[in-house]
């Protein structure tokens, strides 16, 4: 009886909320670089000039570390949501994008040949600066 009353109360006075995740793949910023695009990269062989020729200008140049970063943002998930207030005969709905940030990091040696490279995803709550520091520090 008590549960029924609570449910009735929530239904009349409260808000019913629902959401549905929708897979997506929309590049919203930068140029996406696929795994195939970086097949030409070879450690110790590929030069900076070769990289610029194949991939174009990088998004970020960190001169102190001789590092190029290509950056692109992708919406990989959209969440459609609806909130209904039955008691008020009212409803509202929307779609929220969940973006992901990707980076292709290429570090060169003193002779401007590829030393390290990695295509990676930036952790959600990490700044690019922190990520670059960590990435360079691990190599």
């Amino acid at each position: 009886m008590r549960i029924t009353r609570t449910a009735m109360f929530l239904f009349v006075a409260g808000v019913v909320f629902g959401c549905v995740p929708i897979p997506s793949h929309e590049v919203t910023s930068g140029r996406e670089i696929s795994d195939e695009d970086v097949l030409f990269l070879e450690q110790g062989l590929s030069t900076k000039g070769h990289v610029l020729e194949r991939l174009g200008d990088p998004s970020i140049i960190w001169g102190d570390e001789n590092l190029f970063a290509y950056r692109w943002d992708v919406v990989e998930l959209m969440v459609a949501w609806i909130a209904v207030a039955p008691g008020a005969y009212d409803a509202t709905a929307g779609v929220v994008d969940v973006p992901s940030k990707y980076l292709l990091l290429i570090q060169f040696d003193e002779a401007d040949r590829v030393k390290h490279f990695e295509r990676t995803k930036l952790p959600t709550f990490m700044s690019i600066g922190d990520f670059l520091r960590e990435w360079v520090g691990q190599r």
Partner: protein
Amino acid sequence: MKTARPQMGKPGTATACVLHLASLLTCLSPSQSCRDIGARFALWFSGLGILVNLIGACATTELPSKTELADIEASRNTIVLVRIVVEGPDGKPIRPFANSLVDDNLGLAVGDFESGGVPTGRLERVRFLSNESRDQGWTYLVLQSGTYYLALQAARREHLSSYIARFAHAPRWFLDIPADVPIVYAGSLYLSGKREWLILGGDVVEHIDATHAEVRDERALALELTAKHLRGLGPSKTTLMERHLSDTFYIRKPTESRQ
């Protein structure tokens, strides 16, 4: 290095504001005739709104804090002085900093190492050395040595998050702040813009056009200003900012003192 502190803002301004607020409070005190609670509430609520606006307008300067000054003296931070001049279609200047400390006639954002150079993330708090310099468009930032991108937008007329996101595509200028310099003058930025008159008086920058923007070297004026308000902090250096049109951001890790 001398340890003299910069001069504080004009004391008369704060006193005048307090008096103004006090007189407003007296006017708004509930009178005998205001018996209706709803009317009283509405009156007080309106008064509160006016007070908040007045307080915002009264707080016109924000000098470097003691901690910031200590960091500057220890070469960990630098005061970066910038002047922004916006000229309307009629050739008359539109004051870029006239209304508020956070949401002024112009919005500023700075991209740094952490953001990968892109000037998004937060709206920069504008600070001033004096009321006079604020009227003339002078503002300053406290930054570590490194590379930065200063982006500008006209006054905010939308949700804060959308406004901040748009800084990524706003006109921007490259700043290279050298190490071990207490004060850097980064130039005077002359822009053309459109004016929007407000219903209750005053105007804001409705639109800025950076196509013909020019960075001018007014180091004599900058020196005069720093001599007056930042006396004792040491020498200043002029490193003019440059318009950044490329999609590539050059970043340099902020460095501490090289001494």
